[in-house]
């Protein structure tokens, strides 16, 4: 027998992809639906990462803006969470500590605050009355929504400044005409409304009056219940460790010192753990999408038996047939993944813009999401491709 140099069949890579595209375009609706599964999974992953990244960045700028050098000093809270008085010496002693920039005392006063004297006493709306001095504004780095803050003069008179939440609860939005409120059994004139104070939410829910007025008219005994301390940013650690002893040298363990910016930092951490949960859900969605692709591909292989037979007759090897189906599922998942990335970015942009955040989508999320989609599609396509490649030509050509 004369040895014949044998011409092999060849299936160029371009043609593999082209054939895959043709296979999909012949069944567009089905392809679209199975790609949708992958799309939703990828969009969920990108969206979760994008939204958390954007909100984290926002929290970080918030922390930067508010500063991490604000400390609060209060006596360990009594039963029911009410603030307890601190010693009279606390404020002057803390004020002379090196590195302390500002100290402002506040004291919770008894009595509810009402819009008018006709409101029943039990409808406090969760608002409290609090005495403070004019320095609080600077210590908290707070800003005014309207009107002015307490000053040494007005501190002696029945005037009040409302926290943002308190103003909302009382239904006061404009100060063009004189507004009065009913607090601790007397009328107070509202002179100002504060913007929200992120680091001191208790101020938001308070109606603030001057210490002098509180002492003279409301029977205030002069004991502060909470001090706000603004410290040198470089010495915050050292100062916070001596604050308790300084505030109450006899019983330092009864004093609670806290750093409100820690709460924001804690929110970052909480968000981090929520992210992994949602990311897990996104991954599950992607997996379900992959199962959908596998399902569609298996059906496709069964339906296209005669096409497989024809291709074998035209000279396709087993591998060529397998490659064709694998490329279809790869294309399907890439399309789904790309659409998912776009949708995820769109969701992030919409949500972040609504929240007033800067839109941030991590680059790793984009290619990671795309990669995950492609990987899922490939794995989903493996079994159907294997089935297609193993089909004997004579079986494939047999018409039922």
């Amino acid at each position, binding site marked *: 027998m004369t040895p014949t140099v044998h011409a092999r069949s060849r299936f160029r890579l371009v043609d593999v992809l082209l054939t895959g595209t043709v296979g999909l375009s012949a069944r567009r609706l089905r392809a679209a639906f199975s790609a949708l599964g992958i799309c939703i999974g990828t969009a969920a992953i990108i969206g979760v990462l994008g939204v958390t990244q954007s909100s984290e960045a926002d929290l970080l700028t918030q922390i930067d803006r508010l500063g991490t050098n604000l400390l609060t000093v209060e006596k360990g809270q009594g039963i029911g969470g009410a603030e307890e008085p601190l010693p009279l010496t606390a404020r002057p002693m803390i004020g002379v500590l090196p590195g302390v920039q500002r100290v402002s005392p506040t004291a919770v006063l008894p009595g509810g605050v009402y819009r008018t004297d006709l409101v029943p006493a039990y409808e406090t709306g969760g608002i409290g009355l609090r005495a403070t001095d004019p320095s609080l504004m600077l210590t908290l780095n707070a800003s005014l929504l309207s009107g002015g803050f307490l000053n040494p003069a007005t501190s002696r008179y029945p005037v009040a400044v409302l926290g943002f939440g308190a103003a909302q609860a009382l239904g006061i939005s404009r100060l063009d005409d004189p507004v009065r409120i009913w607090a601790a059994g007397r009328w107070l004139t509202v002179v100002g409304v504060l913007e929200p104070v992120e680091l001191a939410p208790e101020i938001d829910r308070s109606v603030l009056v001057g210490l002098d007025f509180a002492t003279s008219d409301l029977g205030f005994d002069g004991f502060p219940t909470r001090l706000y301390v603004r410290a040198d940013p470089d010495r915050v650690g050292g100062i916070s460790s001596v604050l308790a002893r300084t505030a109450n040298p006899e019983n330092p363990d009864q004093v609670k010192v806290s750093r409100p910016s820690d709460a924001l930092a804690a929110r970052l951490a909480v968000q981090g753990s929520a992210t992994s949960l949602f990311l897990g859900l996104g991954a599950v969605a992607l997996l379900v999408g992959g199962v959908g692709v596998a399902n569609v591909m298996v059906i496709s292989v069964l339906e296209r038996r*005669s096409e497989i037979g024809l291709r074998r007759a035209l000279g396709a090897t087993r591998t060529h047939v397998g490659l064709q189906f694998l490329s279809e599922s790869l294309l399907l998942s890439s399309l789904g993944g790309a659409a998912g990335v776009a949708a995820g970015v769109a969701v992030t942009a919409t949500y972040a813009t609504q929240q007033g955040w800067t839109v941030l989508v991590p680059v790793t999320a984009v290619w990671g999401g795309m990669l995950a989609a492609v990987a899922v599609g490939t794995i989903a396509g493996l079994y159907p491709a294997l089935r297609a490649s193993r089909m004997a030509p004579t079986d494939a050509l047999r018409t039922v």
Partner: protein
Amino acid sequence: MSAALALAAVWKRYPGDPPVETLRDVSLSIDAGELVAVVGPSGSGKTTLLHLMGTLDRPTQGEVRVSGQSVSRLSDVELSGLRAHHLGFVFQQFFLLEGVSILDNVANGLLYRGLPLGQRRAQAEEALLRVGLGHRMRQRPNQLSGGERQRVAIARALVGRPAIVLADEPTGNLDTASGRAIVDLLHELNGDGTTIAVITHNREVAAAMRRRVEIRDGRIVGDSSVAA
């Protein structure tokens, strides 16, 4: 002159109880340039014979040679190469891809030879002109009549100028007039030098061929070229 296709003492047995023998000791040689009809009733083993001739299946016993090449020891990859370069198929059901233009359906006949798309299309155009469908190249298969579809399938089988074209009941799904036109086309192509084997149960189709091989119960019971 060497045979384009030759079968020597070929048996095909399917295991079972009792085993089914669809081909029994079949020997057949088709020379280049021949137009042969393999004719027999259904169940006679015609399709099995076509599958063996087309290397889509292997004989249980005996030898099949395509272009002088014995196929028994070839791997799946080598057999696929043989089909891509030496064999062309025409099926009763046409097997055209619905989502693809006529031109690309024919160009697919060269897909597994690794030729670039432009070259495949150029040759496909030529093949379509040969079967008289030059004007319908951009259309989709569903816009064509059954007879036209079969012409497309024939163009696809021809496009690579294979050593032999195997046609399995090419007129089986067509009305008499279209069937006759297909037979005429096969004659015409054979006149141009294409080796063609037509498998059919239709005596009229078979009668139109120069050489007729009759098969019954897996055995060749008549060969007009031998008888003559």
